[in-house]
């Protein structure tokens, strides 16, 4: 029942070659997996860890390439990606952020996984390494894929240089160290007083983070005035599929989706109001 083997892979490719075998799971920072291993409920005999696979880096050359094993504490220092920094800073506390990783956060089940909405708003792509080679789908596409996500190794997240303004809001039961009730990340490109490009992404209110297409459509091609913001927020709430859980009722999550989106849009536009 307990873990019988812990293998530290020295590369993403090495980890990928072991990942698909029965009874094997991958481990990033370990914040989600270690409690299960300690409690004896992991259900896997072998764990392949990425701690020594050389995936802890931030490289900038026009785009920002963040290794999947970058701690959230590192992500929380990225001044040029303020929405991503805001999301990372909202996760738990300092000591956990030194252990938790960007990649692991993308595998966290709702209501955890606060970084995906921001990365969706930023049009991030992911580099996946499998036994058959590499691929680099958009994060938005990868999140909607069915099937076993444990067979490929998430090695890197690539964030294009953001165009426009961004905003991020997260609501939780407590001010810190508690899972999100709802979170929203937005990006708006404004040209000649109208929104040329809009991204509205929501998290914690569906099995995986998603872009609220109807909200984006409502905003695109028109001024981002109070009416547009209000309607886009409601459209985003309609796109959520929350469930009742010990943190919040589905009703409350849906209400807070609208609030989070509205506040994220106002923040992006620099016109915050209560």
């Amino acid at each position: 029942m307990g873990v019988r083997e812990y293998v530290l892979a020295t590369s993403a490719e090495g980890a990928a070659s072991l990942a698909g075998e029965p009874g094997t799971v991958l481990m990033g920072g370990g914040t989600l997996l270690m409690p299960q291993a300690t409690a004896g409920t992991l259900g896997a005999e072998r764990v392949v860890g990425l701690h020594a696979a050389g995936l802890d880096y931030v490289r900038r050359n026009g785009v920002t390439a963040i290794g999947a094993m970058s701690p959230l504490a590192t992500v929380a220092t990225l001044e040029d990606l303020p929405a991503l920094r805001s999301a990372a800073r909202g996760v738990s506390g300092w000591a956990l952020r030194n252990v938790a990783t960007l990649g692991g956060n993308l595998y966290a089940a709702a209501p955890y996984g606060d970084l995906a909405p921001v990365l969706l708003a930023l049009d991030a792509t992911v580099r996946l390494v499998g036994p058959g080679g590499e691929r680099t789908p958009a994060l938005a596409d990868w999140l909607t894929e069915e099937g076993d996500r444990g067979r490929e190794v998430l090695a890197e997240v690539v964030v294009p240089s953001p165009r426009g303004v961004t905003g991020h809001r997260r609501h939780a039961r407590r001010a810190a160290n508690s899972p999100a009730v709802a979170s929203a990340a937005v990006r708006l490109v404004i040209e000649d007083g109208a929104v040329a490009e809009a991204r509205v992404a929501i998290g914690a209110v569906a099995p995986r983070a998603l872009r609220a297409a109807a909200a984006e459509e409502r905003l695109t091609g028109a001024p981002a005035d109070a009416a547009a913001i209000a309607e886009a927020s409601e459209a985003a709430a309609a796109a959520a599929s929350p469930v009742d859980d010990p943190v919040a009722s589905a009703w409350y999550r849906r209400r807070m989706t609208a609030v989070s989106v509205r506040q994220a849009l106002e923040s992006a536009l620099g016109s915050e109001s209560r």
Partner: protein
Amino acid sequence: MTMRAVSFELNGEPVAALARPLDTLQSVLRQQLGMTGTKAGCRQGGCGSCTVRMDGEPVLACLVPVEHVEGHSVTTIEGLGSADALSPVQATFFERFAIQCGFCSPGMIMVATALLERNPDPSRAEITEALAGNVCRCTGIAPIVDAIEAAASRIREKEGAEA
């Protein structure tokens, strides 16, 4: 199952432990190395009572496989000070009753110590943010923030006097 020897520096001294796969730093500290000052409140990374420092950085010992500390330096509450030689943070916690049941105290003191090394003059908001991952069910946190402010002041005065 393979046992592995893990060698690292603990509170300034070289130590070695035997690790089963994914044994946590927390369980090895508490059960093999006699360091019971690091607590086990949840074993899920939620309470912060197992906070230790790895190469100076606060980490949750319940989430760190002990194998990851091979060759690194780990500091626990036992390494900060003793009853007759308290560190400034330990002293202000003691003097200002920033302790009730004491179970969260080692974790709080470890985070506070790391914070003050990084930020010698933190605001109350910065202190509160640094403590976000540490749960205290007794004090209501305010006396802890007060003690850390007082420790910051004491450290700055001492360093000013020594300068």
